[in-house]
């Protein structure tokens, strides 16, 4: 189907450019490493505390690596007015948007898997206790990051809106998703399953709801965002 093809073309383009200048991967790798050095050095805590922090730290790394990566996804189009050409091409803005989101999603997941391994080793946290569930949370949480980050960067490239304090807004917007993700990750690392019905199950709803709603809204709104 044509729409899908376009999405893939865009995604492929972004991925290639990103792979040429390994910017995001390296930045976040360095970030993970240093958090590691500093925290491990700064204090050696008992395993539980360690695990608790680990979950928070993980998502901190993800959020930061994410924003490093995502903020640039439309900014990358600015230098030679490439955005003009994309907007001019017969590509539905939603396809453009999803294409970029997809590329970011892939990169972000790669980075996250890397960090997970590293953290597992140095914080001797057995995060594989409930591998399946953890991966699901990861997928959902990451999509939340991606969708928000991408639309946010689309908004900021648009001159008219740049004065607005958008940077201030992005993180607060993410808080619900991140909270949910952190809580769930915490549980799974502790090896405690979380069913929708259960007391902590609300986090599931929060995370999924966040993804569904924001995806829908952004896909609808992006046209207006991109054409000034």
């Amino acid at each position, binding site marked *: 189907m044509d729409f899908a093809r376009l999405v893939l073309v865009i995604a492929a383009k972004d991925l290639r450019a990103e792979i040429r200048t390994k910017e995001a991967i390296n930045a976040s790798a360095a970030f993970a490493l240093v958090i590691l*050095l500093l925290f*491990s*050095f700064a204090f*050696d805590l008992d395993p539980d505390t360690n695990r608790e922090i680990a979950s928070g730290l993980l998502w901190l790394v993800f959020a930061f690596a994410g924003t490093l990566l995502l903020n640039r996804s439309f900014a990358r189009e600015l230098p030679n007015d490439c955005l003009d050409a994309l907007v001019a091409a017969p590509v539905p803005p939603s396809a453009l948007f999803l294409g970029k989101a997809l590329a970011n999603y892939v990169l972000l997941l790669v980075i996250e898997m890397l960090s997970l391994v590293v953290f597992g080793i140095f914080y001797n946290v057995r995060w594989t206790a409930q591998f399946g569930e953890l991966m699901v949370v990861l997928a959902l949480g990451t999509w939340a990051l991606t969708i928000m980050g991408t639309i946010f960067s689309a908004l900021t490239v648009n001159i008219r809106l740049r004065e607005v304090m958008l940077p201030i807004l992005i993180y607060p917007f993410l808080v619900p998703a991140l909270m949910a993700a952190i809580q769930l990750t915490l549980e799974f690392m502790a090896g405690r399953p979380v069913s929708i019905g259960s007391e902590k199950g609300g986090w599931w709803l929060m995370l999924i709801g966040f993804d569904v709603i924001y995806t829908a809204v952004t896909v609808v709104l992006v046209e207006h965002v991109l054409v000034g």
Partner: protein
Amino acid sequence: MFWWGDKTMRDKILYFLGAAAVLLIARNIYVISGLPGEEAQGAIFKIIFFHVPLAITALTCGTVACVASILYLVKKEMKYDALAVSVTEVGLAFLAGNLITGSIWARIIWGVWWAWDVRLTSALVCWILYASYLMIRHAVEEPTQRAKLAAVVSIFAFIDVPIVILSIRLFRTQHPGPVFFSSTGSFPHDWSMIMMWNLFAMLMLGTVMTMIRLRQEEVQREIDSLRRLAHAF
């Protein structure tokens, strides 16, 4: 020995030195294996005869690299850049050796592969810094610019070396404190002698490796300039 004929004098000397270093190390190993185990730690303690020389050689390489870099910035002569790369790469190898022997030692004495005290951290950081020195060299293709930026990075990186050395003197570290080069040091004399011999051997080995690597650099540079000339006309 057909390949011997076409070697320059310098090469021949290099090979002799290299051979000598290897022999000396072999001899040291033999002597060390003959020693009785240390009372507290037993046989593993002998690893210090490599752990320390490796470290000192590595740190020396860092110092040489720093000097070479400064010389490059002052004189702008490519040979200094070449020296800097060569010696840095060798140094990285030796520092890696120190890290590995160290953490083997740690595994046996402390029961963990790694501990985040200042000495260990700073040594690791030192390694990372010189690794990133090599990385930036890859990121810049224009030779003079590469040499210049690399020199700057190298000088920065060197500042970590004194931190590594002083770390066990400034802080209470899990890593044992000064044994040599300090008044508190309590180390049997004949053992110190062996240590010195091994240190000497390591330094010699390092020099030889550096010279060889340097030779490669020079050849590479000649090839480049020839290729460029070919492109020019």
